[in-house]
């Protein structure tokens, strides 16, 4: 057991956790940030994707004891960051996913949305191929991905009436 200082969604959280716990377990079961999902146990599905220093990373394969000092963004962090930046409502990428119907069961979507966020931060106007390649580590079983692409394109356009 070790007291970890984790920078999650802009906050510094001090959390006592056994050293063999993954970041996903600490986020979900110690910090109550259950938006990051667990689908496959071991890095095959992408549902636990979080951003570490802006980079899509699998929380289920990251030890919490190795990410101190890094900026961790989970799905719960997007709305507060959006509001802090003067925005209203939800983050535009989240909004776009809702608007295009990309959210069926929703289980893969926190990870998917964070992968999309990272893509758009790097490449504000991605091609379909770039979208597909960037999301190729996030499995979705409901949508056939089509409405997810539409969401990313919509978020890129910023046309979210």
């Amino acid at each position, binding site marked *: 057991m070790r007291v970890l200082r984790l920078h999650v969604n802009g906050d510094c959280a001090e959390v006592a956790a056994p050293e063999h716990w993954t970041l996903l377990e600490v986020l979900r079961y110690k910090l*109550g940030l*259950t938006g990051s999902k667990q689908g496959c146990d071991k890095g095959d599905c992408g549902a636990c994707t979080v951003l570490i220093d802006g980079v899509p990373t699998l929380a289920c394969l990251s030890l919490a004891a190795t990410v101190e000092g890094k900026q961790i963004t989970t799905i719960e962090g997007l709305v507060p960051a959006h509001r802090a930046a003067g925005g209203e409502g939800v983050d535009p990428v989240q909004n776009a*996913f809702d608007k295009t119907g990309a*959210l069926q069961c929703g289980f893969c979507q926190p990870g998917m949305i964070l992968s999309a966020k990272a893509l758009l931060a790097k490449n504000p106007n991605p091609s379909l191929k770039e979208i597909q390649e960037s999301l190729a580590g996030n*499995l979705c079983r409901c949508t*056939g991905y089509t409405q997810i692409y539409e969401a990313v394109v919509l978020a890129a356009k910023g046309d979210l009436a």
Partner: protein
Amino acid sequence: MAARDQHGSEAPWDQGFRVIGKENRKVDGMAKATGEAIYTDDIQLPGMLHAKMLRSPHAHARILSIDTSKAEALPGVIGVLVGAELPVRYGVIPWTPDETALAVDKVRFIGDEVAAVAALDEDTANAAIRLIEVEYEILESILDAEKALITPEPPIHEDRKRRDNISKHVELEFGDVEAQVSSADIVVEEDYSFHSTTHAAMEPHCAVAVANSDGRLTLWSSTQITHYVHRALARVLQLDPARIRVIQPCLGGGFGGKSDPFSLEFVVAQLAIKTGRPVKMLWTREEVFYAHRGRHPMKMHYRTTAKADGTITGVDAKLLIDGGAYSSFGLVTTYYSGQLLTGPYDFPNYRFDSTRVFTNRPPNGPKRGHGSVQPRFAFEVQLDEIAQRLNIDPIEIRRRNFLGAHTETVNGQRITSNGFLECLQEVEAASDWKARHGKLPHGRGIGVAGSMYISGTNYPVYPNKMPQAGVQLKIDRSGLVTVFTGGNDIGQGSNSMVAYLVAEELGIQPSHIKVIAADTDLCPVDLGAYSSRVTFMVGNAAIDAARKLRHKLVEAVAVAWDVAQKDVRFMDGTVVDLSAAARSMTHVEAFHLAEEMFDTLGSTGAYNTPTLGGDYRGGTIGSAPAYSFTAHVAEVEVDTETGRITVHKVWAAHDCGRALNPMIVRGQIEGSTYMGAAEVVLESHDLNRFGLHAGPSLLDYRIPTAVDTPELAARIIESIDPEGPFGAKEAGEGPLHSTIPAIANAVFDAVGIRLRHLPFTPAKVLAALRAKEEQA
């Protein structure tokens, strides 16, 4: 009774649809996009224990003894459970209760549940599991359906009336198929097979139970069938069902994989009772693969007779269905494998002989398109071959055999609306079929297939005459309408659907509707999310409830304004007086008037199917109040050097009746098509030579990523159904069926090989290409 009222398919306020048919947002979309939505494993309760399962390492064995003493002695272990403590059998189909919460005397596949431990944390529970000592007597295992058919000993289930390994046998004949053989211009007879595939919903199964000190038990479970779980819990735990509450939290996908009562639900409940503490069990992905209930592997033999003009004269089918270790929905599967093939084409004569056997494999059950995806694959490939041999265009042969609307199938199923011809026309035009079929360069091809599927079933699993779906509405003085429905939203959007229907019927905005679903304490019964029944049945019940309320609201306003009721119109939350244009009020004011007039306001609605089905044993199984229809064209490329099939694009036209929300319907068509395509070229739920799942993980069971998914062009065809809610039918399962044979037929167009045995691995493609070269 009100439940059988027909609500009509037109807009309720004579002003066109205001909500229905629009691309409204889903009621839970934002909660899912932000991570606020609570799924079962997101529930954490004070003092909660974590439970783990001990599973059988043997495919077939008798349990001689279980010693849990070492596990119990491990510090941190709070409760241990073995099968003898919960010996009552259950099964989702009440006629075939052959499962127990934990194995009592035998294990029947590798992964079968044997014992469970609840501990302070997961690590302790895992350690304790390894300390349980089980003595097994290993029995001969049967891993192959053909072997099961001819091997009565040892019976996998021993105390049934029949002492063999046949789970269910159905043989039905309509007309006289043999008589057609001599008079036919063409007879095509071939073997086909469909392999094992699974649902792989992204959320693993999870259940949490609390047993309160007042004797009430609450179970949260990732289930598609809250009501059946409720019944099964009462039966197995031998508790008064009135003291059990089952809640389905937000569900991370089902596809039929959460449609049975599962071991973990009984186990956490019993452990919660035993320990007096909340208990959670979350299955690993590996455990989900063992729980399975996936698509039944089938070996199928079809013989179709036809005239020279392509008219089908008879279809004769013999099917061998691998049921795996338990019955699950198998009785229904066996019927569905034959009963659901009799459209969209007219079969004048039809016979099927379906046998489901038990094997020592993870149990099979209902996967999206339950029981009918496999025969559809076989038949549509056979029909393509008939067209080819008769030199008839494959779309044309499907047109010529069209069954028609408002008719009856050879096996007595009532067909109402039928948009199949429009589906065919749509994909024919969209794919530029006439210019491209048979004319693309070698290696590239397009293929077509059609299908139909049930919109609900009038077979209610356990016999009763009560409604299949109920909905209750509650009016609040704030203007909020709360809808209580037993319907299970599994991601398909049924809660949103209910909100749209109630908003439309009441003339208010969907934002003023709140849906409370799938909580047995709060919501009227619905039978669950299976057989594509929710839109049709819960939808009709919602309209029924809303219409009753609407009459009261209109009456109250009419009295207050002293106008005729026909002059009161609710529109987007505003009530207008059609006789005096200037007068209006908000719907909130109308609610107040109605509450003054009628007291506290609410309503209930229900739906039950009309009497349906042929007058013979099993005639009601597969008879639906409406059927959806589908046609797909798939475009593939075959790399003749590697054998790899790339599915480039699928045009998927689906007749869903009225599209209540086209955005959601498209999502269902796209998701179904994607899933079907994956079954052809990627996915296989394989066992190795030990009977152990070859790769129970999402690494080795390869569901498509974004770069593996074909371009999906969903087309909605709206044949307004007279009995569907505002004319709607299902969209969640039907569109999977056509995908698979369309791809098979496209491969034939591309390289001239008929693939009849799924999956189409590159190795099989290469072998077929070589065989063709050798023939030439």
